[in-house]
């Protein structure tokens, strides 16, 4: 599984990254998190709002920071 956080280093992006790490810990998922800050790359995912969360090249969160619980739900769905 590859997990990416898209965003140009704003406060929301860091929060999303931290919460994702926390959610992964709670679910015992071990995967590297990659931060994508380059606008060209961000745009290639077709997103217009940051921060975004991308799991296995699928955009699952756009333009907001979900709670740790919500991220856990998303991760569970993506893993199955």
């Amino acid at each position: 599984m590859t997990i990416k956080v898209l965003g140009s280093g704003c406060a929301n992006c860091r929060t999303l990254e931290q919460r994702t790490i926390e959610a992964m810990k709670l679910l015992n998922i071990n995967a590297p998190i990659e931060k994508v800050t380059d606008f060209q790359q961000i745009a290639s995912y077709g997103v217009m709002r940051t921060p975004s969360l991308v799991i296995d090249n699928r955009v699952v969160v756009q333009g907001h920071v979900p709670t740790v619980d919500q991220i856990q739900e998303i991760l569970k769905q993506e893993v199955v």
Partner: protein
Amino acid sequence: MTRKISFLSVFLVLWVSLYTNLEVLTDFVINSIFHLGKNSPLTSAVHFFIFEVPKVLLLLTLIVFVVGIVRSYFSPERTRKILGGKKLFVGNVLSSMLGIVTPFCSCSAIPLFLGFVESGIPLGVTFSFLIAAPMINEIAVVLLFGLFGWKVALIYIVTGLSIAIVSGYIIGRLKLERHVEEWVYKIQVHHVAAEETKVSYSERIDAGIDAVKEIVAKVWMYIVVGIAVGAAVHGYVPENFMASLMGKSVWWSVPVSVLIGIPMYSNAAGIIPVVQALLEKGASLGTVLAFMMSVIGLSFPETIILRKVLKLPLIFIFVGIVGTGIVMVGYLFNLIY
């Protein structure tokens, strides 16, 4: 859902009873708790502060909630779809209006710009959006409505929209695509973002509540500080002090205010209470309006962000056209009022 509705009803009743009794409550605090004498500058300043802070915060809570719900019906993706294939002018009008209601944060300005350009929306139409979105925001409208009344709030919205439409149209007509960084037009979208899912009413109410939490947490400090400065001006600056600096008869006051306003960075919450106090001390409406628009609508950090996708000439043209529009609005209102 029923729980949410009853919670909202209780909130609304509390809101109305507080809002309609603010004057009484303020007088009570001034007379019975602080024991301040009548007609001293201190009383006048404290009264202003105690009355305006809760008033503005109440208005902000309600309007941000409503705007949060309205915005849940819009998204940049949807706006992009609506704007696709629209010609110049019609596209500019639509784009400016969508700029008001589409959720937008200046940190997303670049991805949004890229998303628009990539889907073939003309540069001028994209600019109308980028001008209207930060300039006409709910915080500015709330503060203008609360501190100046509905007429000024409406004037601000209408003139702000006109500037966004006309500036975007001119930028479109000038064919400035060559001043956009080359890589922008080479972007290839490899992955398709997830389809929008259906949103329930309950989730829309949540969106409104989230918006209130987020925005009130972000701007309450600015409002308190802004109103405190406004209160000091209100109490201690002599009447008509501003007339000689920002008054109607001073022809250079409008362009100078705009030049000072452009590099200044403050959100609407901090600047409007100060500006209101200036107006009271003899500054003219047009000058004040122009100053406010240049502070809120043309911000230095945002132009720096835009530099990543726009070459310098286009940045200058953008600031120049919008700045000229703001100066014209300033003169127009000094002439009318």
